[in-house]
C-alpha cells in the first residue's frame, strides 16, 4: 500500500481525472450515457432485478474520484454505477455486471447493486442502507493501526442519516479519530419519501456537531466544489485530525429505482435542478476557461456516447458466467 499521495500511481482511468479537466468532462458524459443506456437496456428486457440510476449526481462521482488517490478506498451504495466509473472501472465491466455477464466487475454474481473493483479502491457496494459506513470505519482503523496513510471514503444517501449505523459510525470515527470521510449525497429523497417528511432538519451536515466533527455543506452539482471539499477532508484525515462529514446537495433526475416514475415530486422541481445540471455547468466552465470550445465539447459527447454504446455491445455479447462460478469463492481454504 502506498503511504503518500505523491507515490500513488493507480489505474490510468482513475489518475487521469486529477490531471485533466477534459477527462473529467468526458467521464461525466460517460456516467450519464451509461445510465441512460441502462434505462433502455431495461426496456429492451435485458436487465433483471433492480437498478438505481445517478443521473444528475455525476459531479459528486467525479469530484470525489479526482480528489482521492486510488489507494484511498471507497464504500458506496447501490446507486453506485457512476461512482464505479468515476473511480476507474470500465464501462464494459459495469454494463457486464448489470447484465449478469462473465465480464462484469463481480463476474456477474453481484448485479447492479454489487459493483466492486479492488484495483480502483471500490469495495463491494452494498444494497443495505447505511451498511458501508461502519465498514469504512474499519478500513480507516486498519490504515491507522498499520500507519498506511490511506483514507477511507464512504458515500451514502440522505436516507442513511436516519439509520443507526450512520450515528454509530460517526461516533466511532470521532472518538478514535479515524481517517475517514463521510460523503452524504443529499438528493432530497429517501427512496420515495421527501426528506422533509423523514428528517426534521434541512442541512444534514448539522448532524456532525453531535460528534464534535467538522462538516461542510457542498454544492454537489459543481465538480470543482466537490473536489475541493473532498480534498480538504482528505487532508484533515491524512494529517491525523480525524473524520469529516460532507453534505453534497444534489438531485437524482430519475426515480429511486427503475420501477419508480417519481410522480411524488413537486411540479417544477426537476426542471429547477436541471437549470444547474452538473455536466452543463462544468462544460460552461471549461469553455469559458478556453480548455475546450463548443465544437470540441460536442465532439467529445458524440465520441463518449459511441464508446459507451460499444461497451454495452461488448457486454451484451459477453459470455454468461460458467455454472461453476456459483460455487466459487463462498469460502476459502482452511489449511
Amino acid at each position: 500500500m502506498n503511504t503518500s499521495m505523491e507515490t500513488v500511481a493507480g489505474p490510468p482511468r482513475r489518475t487521469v481525472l486529477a490531471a485533466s479537466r477534459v477527462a473529467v468532462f468526458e467521464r461525466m458524459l460517460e456516467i450519464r450515457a451509461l445510465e441512460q443506456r441502462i434505462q433502455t437496456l431495461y426496456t429492451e428486457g435485458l436487465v433483471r432485478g433492480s437498478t438505481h440510476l445517478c443521473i444528475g449526481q455525476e459531479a459528486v462521482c467525479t469530484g470525489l474520484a479526482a480528489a482521492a488517490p486510488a489507494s484511498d478506498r471507497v464504500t458506496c451504495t447501490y446507486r453506485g454505477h457512476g461512482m464505479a466509473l468515476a473511480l476507474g472501472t470500465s464501462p464494459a465491466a459495469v454494463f457486464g455486471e448489470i447484465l449478469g455477464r462473465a465480464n462484469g466487475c463481480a463476474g456477474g454474481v453481484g448485479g447492479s447493486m454489487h459493483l466492486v473493483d479492488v484495483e480502483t479502491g471500490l469495495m463491494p457496494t452494498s444494497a443495505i442502507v447505511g451498511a458501508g459506513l461502519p465498514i469504512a470505519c474499519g478500513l480507516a482503523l486498519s490504515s491507522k493501526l498499520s500507519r498506511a496513510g490511506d483514507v477511507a471514503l464512504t458515500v451514502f444517501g440522505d436516507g442513511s442519516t436516519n439509520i443507526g449505523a450512520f450515528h454509530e459510525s460517526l461516533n466511532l470515527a470521532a472518538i478514535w479519530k479515524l481517517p475517514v470521510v463521510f460523503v452524504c449525497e443529499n438528493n432530497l429523497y429517501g427512496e420515495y419519501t421527501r426528506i422533509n417528511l423523514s428528517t426534521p432538519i434541512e442541512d444534514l451536515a448539522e448532524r456532525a456537531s453531535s460528534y464534535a466533527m467538522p462538516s461542510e455543506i457542498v454544492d454537489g452539482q459543481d465538480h470543482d466544489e466537490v473536489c475541493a471539499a473532498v480534498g480538504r477532508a482528505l487532508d484533515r484525515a491524512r494529517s491525523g485530525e480525524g473524520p469529516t462529514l460532507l453534505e453534497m446537495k444534489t438531485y437524482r433526475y430519475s426515480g429511486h429505482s427503475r420501477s419508480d416514475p417519481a410522480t411524488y415530486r413537486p411540479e417544477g422541481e426537476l426542471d429547477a435542478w436541471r437549470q444547474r445540471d452538473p455536466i452543463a455547468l462544468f462544460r460552461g466552465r471549461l469553455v469559458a476557461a478556453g480548455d475546450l470550445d463548443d465544437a470540441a465539447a460536442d465532439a467529445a459527447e458524440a465520441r463518449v456516447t459511441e464508446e459507451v454504446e460499444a461497451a454495452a455491445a461488448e457486454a451484451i455479447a459477453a459470455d454468461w458466467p460458467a455454472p461453476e462460478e456459483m460455487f466459487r469463492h463462498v469460502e476459502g481454504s482452511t489449511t
Partner: protein
Amino acid sequence: MERLRVREAINRALADEMEADPKVICLGEDIAAAGGAFKVTEGLQERFGPERVMDTPISETGFLGAAVGAAMTGMRPVVEMMFIDFTGVALDQLVTEAANTRYLSRGKLTVPLVLRGSAGAGMGFGCQHSGLLDHWFRGTPGLKVGVVSGAAAAYEMHRAAIRDPDPVVVLEPRILYTRREEVDLPVVTDSSSVGRAVTAATGDDLTIVTAGQMVGVALEALAGASWSADVIDLRWLQPWDVEAVLASVRRTSRLVTLEETPPDAGWGGDVLAAVATQLHGQLEAPSLRIGPPPVPVPFSGALEERYLPTADRLREQIEVSLRGAPPTNWWAPEGVSA
C-alpha cells in the same frame, strides 16, 4: 497437563494468537480496561497495548462493521459480543456484509473475522440474555459457527477460528466459563479442525450427538446408565461433521440428538435428515430429538430449571426409548400443553 477454566483457556488462545500474529486485534464492550464482563480478556490490554485490545462504545453495528472493514484490509479482528443476543442489532454486518464479501469480490477481499460471545441459558439472565442463537447463524453461506463445550475445545476452536480465512462465530456457553478441566493444550497451526467433531465418549448402544454445554449433560447421563453410548461433540454446527455422525450411527444403529436451543430450525433436524437419507433401513429404532420447549428462556429458577435438558432427563428419555416407547418430554407432563 494443566487445570484451566474455560474462560482462561479462551484467554490463552487469544493471547497465543496475538503473540503469533500482530494483525490479530480484539475489540468489544469493556474488554480492555475492565478485562471483559466475564473476565475472558483479562490482562490482554496490559500485555498487547491499547491499539490491539480496544474498548468500544455500546455500538454493536458500529464496531462489528468496523471489524468487517478492518478484516477486509489485512487485520484479523476478534470481536467480543458481551451477550450473543446483542448481535441482533448488528446482524446485517455479519450475515449480509461479512458473509458475502468473498463471494461478491470473487475472492479478492476476505473477512477473517471472529465473533465470539457469551451465550446460552442456565444462569437466570432472562430471555434477552440467554439465547444460544446457533440457529440464527447456521443458515448463512459464507459463515462458520461453533460452540464451545469445555476448556480444551475452547482453546483449540478459538485458535482455529482466528486462523480461518472467513468469518467465524464462536459461541461460549456462559455457564461453562468458570468450569475447570484438566487440559493438554493442543498445537494449532491452521484452521483445518474447523468443522470437525470430537468423540467425547464411546459406547455401543446408541449415538448421542450434541454440542456446547449439553456435552457435559450427555457425559453425566452416561454415569449410572443401563446403556452405553458414543457421545459426539459436534463443536462446529456449520460446517458440521456429517461423516463422524454417520460412522458412529452405522455402528450403534440408534441416534439421539441433544440440543440447547428449541427444536425449530435447530441443527438436530439436519442431523436426523442426514441419517434418515443416508442410513435408511439401518436404524433399530426411531431417532430421538431432545431439547428444551419452543418458548423464550424463562427467568424464574423454577422454570429455567424445568426448561433445560439435564442428565437425569436425558437418561430417562433414552431408557424409555430403549424400551420401545415414545418418551414424553419432561417439560410437558399431563395437564401442561406444549
